């Protein structure tokens, strides 16, 4: 069977969608088709991938307009009567073809205060934690850094507030640290100020595209927003914190 893929070709200077008809077979995913096109018709087609199993978060793209992992998008789930469009993520600067410059994300992460554990619980330097207490954080730690949530968030995508807002991926990251049972660091102030959590108006677009099915908004962003609000408006909590020295 044949199908046509309309793939973005070009760089920061400009480009266009180009159509590539190619042979497709049972079980194929979009990344397979892109690879076939690369090896048969367009040797220099730029694309990132590593695991081909939804584990590394390298192959993010916009397929028929939706941010998805190319390696986890089955052709059988797409209408193949029409060309399948494959475009690079829009929220980041284009390098070439399907590859974007995601370095901003790595820079943002560095600005979030690192993990700071409480002193060990046992003399051998280890800690005790109940499984039930870590499950919430384990959910966030499933993140494969595909940056699809960043791509879809209107604050970055439309408003381009990259310097004021760290985006859903990094709220999830901050939440994983803040809710880590051993962590003693405090990140609430910068979440509100420099990291711009207030710009998020809980549209939940990020949650909908997350391939790891992390409930970004309900489980990470909203609880963080609550912490920010508590801190700012609740003088009693504030007083207690000062007294406790935390």
């Amino acid at each position, binding site marked *: 069977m044949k199908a046509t893929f309309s793939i973005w070709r070009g760089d920061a200077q400009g480009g266009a969608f180009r159509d590539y008809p190619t042979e497709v077979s049972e079980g194929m995913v979009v990344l397979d088709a892109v690879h076939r096109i690369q090896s048969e018709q367009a040797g*220099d087609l730029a694309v990132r991938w590593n695991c*081909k199993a939804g584990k590394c978060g*390298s192959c993010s793209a916009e397929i028929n307009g939706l941010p998805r992992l190319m390696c986890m998008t*089955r052709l059988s789930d797409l209408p193949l009567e029409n060309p399948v469009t494959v475009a690079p993520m829009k929220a980041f600067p284009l390098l070439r073809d399907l590859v974007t*410059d995601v370095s901003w994300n790595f820079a943002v992460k560095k600005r979030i205060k690192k993990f700071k554990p409480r002193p060990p619980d046992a003399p051998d330097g280890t800690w005790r934690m109940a499984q039930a207490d*870590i499950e919430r954080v384990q959910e966030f730690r499933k993140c494969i850094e595909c940056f699809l949530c960043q791509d879809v968030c209107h604050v970055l995508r439309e408003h381009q507030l990259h310097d004021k807002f760290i985006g859903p991926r990094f709220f999830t990251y901050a939440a994983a640290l803040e809710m880590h049972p051993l962590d003693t660091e405090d990140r609430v102030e910068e979440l509100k100020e420099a990291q711009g959590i207030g710009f998020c108006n809980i549209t939940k677009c990020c949650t909908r595209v997350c391939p790891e099915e992390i409930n970004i908004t309900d489980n990470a962003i909203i609880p963080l927003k609550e912490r920010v609000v508590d801190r700012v408006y609740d003088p009693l909590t504030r007083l207690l914190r000062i007294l406790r020295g935390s």
Partner: protein
Amino acid sequence: MIGAGGAGLRAAIEASSAGVSVGLVCKSLLGKAHTVMAEGGIAAALANVDERDSWKVHFADTMRGGQYLNNWRMAELHAKEAPDRVRELEAWGALFDRTKDGRILQRNFGGHRYPRLAHVGDRTGLEMIRTLQDQGIHQGIEVHMECTVVALLKDGERVCGAFGYDREKGLLHLYRAGAIVLATGGIGRAYEITSNSWEYTGDGHALAYDAGAELMDMEFVQFHPTGMVWPPSVQGILVTEGVRGEGGVLLNSKGRRFLFDDIPDNYKAQTASDEEEGWRYTQGDKSARRPPELLTRDHVARCIVREVREGRGSPHGGVFLDIAWIRKKLPNAEEVIKKKLPSMYHQFLKLADVDITKQQMEVGPTTHYVMGGVRVDAETQMSTVPGLFAAGECAAGLHGANRLGGNSLSDLLVFGQRAGAHAARFARERRAGEVDQRQLDEAARRALSPFEERGDGTGPYRIQHELQKMMQNLVGIVRRESEMARAVEELAGLRRRAAQVRIDGNRSYNPAWHTALDLQNLIVVSEAVARSALERKESRGAHFRDDLPKQDPAFAKFNIVVKRGADGAMRVERRPIPEMPTELKKIIEEMK
């Protein structure tokens, strides 16, 4: 540090803590190295689940698994230091699954006598790489993402720098360095069916070889018994051994658990005598012995090949892996499977329309890991080239003829740490070497040669594919003298054609160019595998020859190394294994 998987990151953290300035170069983005894909867990004798475990048992298991070709000193250091390296990850923020009393939970895995793998569901590698990455970025390590090293530079005997290109623009870069750690991973792209990504083209192996270092144990390529076989596009993708650790069983088309029919003598005493005992073992019964599904990978892979060849395979040329059967044993089986093996559940549902809580999987062997690599000193991880270190999958020694599952992630931590510390020391104690302009010019010429105008050269993807097919057929799971000799000949032809490849496009993010350069390395490592395999005239561990199916005790006495001869041709040599100290021998005896 060349490579940002577990080994490279751990080495970088160690070296930068030692106060030297560290640069980290990697082909992909940070956090995307192979380590991220590891599923099952990290082997370390923490003895949290079974107090009978200790470094001694882990040591003996590793040696038995490696058929005693391992560097025994590495196996000893590894078993002793792995627990500390795992606990350290926890101190850096990793959240492993917990025991009832709140400590790190450990799971069963093939060849490990007791539950030993610290894990997070079936995404342990992600937890590990993210923890190291997040620790590393706060240490002032300079990271060069999407840069590929294509040559090492030397000043006399010692290394003094590395040379490479960046993917984004195709600019050429020189990295001067007082010491270099190779942590580039494996060679799986030399085969057609593989669980490995595009990165695994044996770059570190080839870089070291070109720089005059020795490669050891290259005949030992691990074929993991359970890769996906259907649909074709997912062929080779890994199905973690954790499935079997949680009670999954392997069945042929007759519904028989065929592994019970063929248990190697040296594992008989440790293997369950019936299905019931095997099940009890997976559920933590300490009086039970492990089911044969958890025998070493080389053995399980060969048994699968036999079932398929003898006509008892599954419809798509594999066998069946069944975890759904535990519904008969556990009322909440569906939940248990989803909780313990979430990414397997997801992977099969999404990619193969198989619900593993209800249906059997089809699986078959896939190229997974290379035991062979740069020959290094056990304590320091330095190769035979001064200043050039290697750690992780691209180094040899720890695993001998066969690696146990879980022993790679621990290898990365233990020897990454050691390599980082000793490389830092090496660099600090000596003046940096001088870069020789001629070497630099030659490296640049070679890197850009695929852009030269050429007549009727083939495209690089096609040659790579031919190479993969050839290696799969001629130097695969079951080997034969005549076929391997043919492989060596065909490699010579492929080398000539690879030197003539034609590519389209320019230097900016051009995968055809990258593939053309990677191809050179694949050819070097493929030749090393084929020549070493020819030299080992017996079957042992992952190396199986159907013309010489028996182990030969004479071959237990040495490792095979290859290095470049003065004439540029590959030389094969035997290196005697030093005598093991009595204390270690005693441990092995006691654990028999």
